[in-house]
């Protein structure tokens, strides 16, 4: 695992609020499905660290601001259309979380047959890692590895992800490494 320069973290870590931009959405995704996916993605991280995440309707005041953007969207890091760069998020305590609107975002590969479909939950889980302060990992199986192929799903935190984020925030008292190892083994 790796951290951003200076090892930034949220100094007031819990609870952190998140909100979806009311203007920057994708029309073909059901908002309820998107909320469920992000809820699950945040839950994976909160299961291993003593940080809770709560959705709020107040976008302006939210700690973490999530939106779908196309091309140059004003942060100096323009998106590039289908595939290429999928999303980016900023290190603590910025909270900006941007997804490339041009991607073919998928909630369920069984119903989405596009060859270019990108699993929204996998990308959400990865970018939350950045929001919390993790940089890219060299471990290919880790959620924080930088690339993700179309039609693949990588949502379960690996030991590398967990050790990295726990070094920033400590461990959730209810978390047991044995459960993580058995879960990964099962999924593998």
């Amino acid at each position, binding site marked *: *695992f*790796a*951290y*951003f*320069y200076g*090892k930034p973290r949220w100094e007031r870590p819990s609870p952190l609020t998140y909100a979806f931009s009311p203007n920057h959405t994708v029309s073909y995704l059901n908002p309820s499905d998107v909320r469920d996916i992000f809820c699950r993605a945040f839950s994976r991280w909160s299961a291993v660290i003593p940080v809770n995440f709560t959705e709020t309707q107040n976008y302006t005041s939210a700690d973490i601001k999530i939106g779908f953007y196309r091309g140059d969207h004003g942060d100096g*890091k323009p*998106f*590039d*259309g*289908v*595939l*290429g*760069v*999928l*999303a*980016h*998020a900023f290190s603590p305590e910025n909270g900006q979380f941007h997804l490339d609107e041009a991607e073919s975002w998928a909630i369920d590969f069984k119903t989405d047959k596009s*060859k*270019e479909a*990108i699993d929204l939950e996998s*990308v959400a889980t*990865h*970018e939350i890692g*950045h929001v919390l302060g993790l*940089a*890219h990992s*060299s*471990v*290919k199986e880790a959620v924080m*590895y*930088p*690339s*993700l*192929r*179309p*039609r693949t799903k990588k949502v379960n935190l690996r*030991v*590398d992800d967990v*050790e*990295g984020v726990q*070094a920033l925030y400590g461990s959730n008292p209810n978390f047991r*490494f044995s459960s993580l190892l058995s879960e990964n083994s099962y999924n593998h």
Partner: protein
Amino acid sequence: RILPDSVPVLTDASDVHNATWHGFSRFLDAGRGSLVSGMSELKNYMHRFGYLPNSNFTDFFDTEFESALTLYQSKLSLPVTGKLDTDTISAIISPRCGVSDASQHTALHATRH
């Protein structure tokens, strides 16, 4: 050596890669000393993700680019060859997070097995 404009490459998944980055597949097997039209775009890619410090690039595969490539291969747990081999090209054209791989430090740690 100078490579031809069209080098057949890659895998069955190549048709779903980003159109812009997929063009990098023609640099397959290029190594230090190569002069290939468009190589500067690949250097821009390496610059974007934190592997090359400068931003004014030529199409020449020089030692600086070789070092960047080695660093990239190491960072992404690829075989470290310093060449644009199949594994490296495949990684380069894969969709990815836009956050730079630089501006970070790796923590010293042991992985539990």
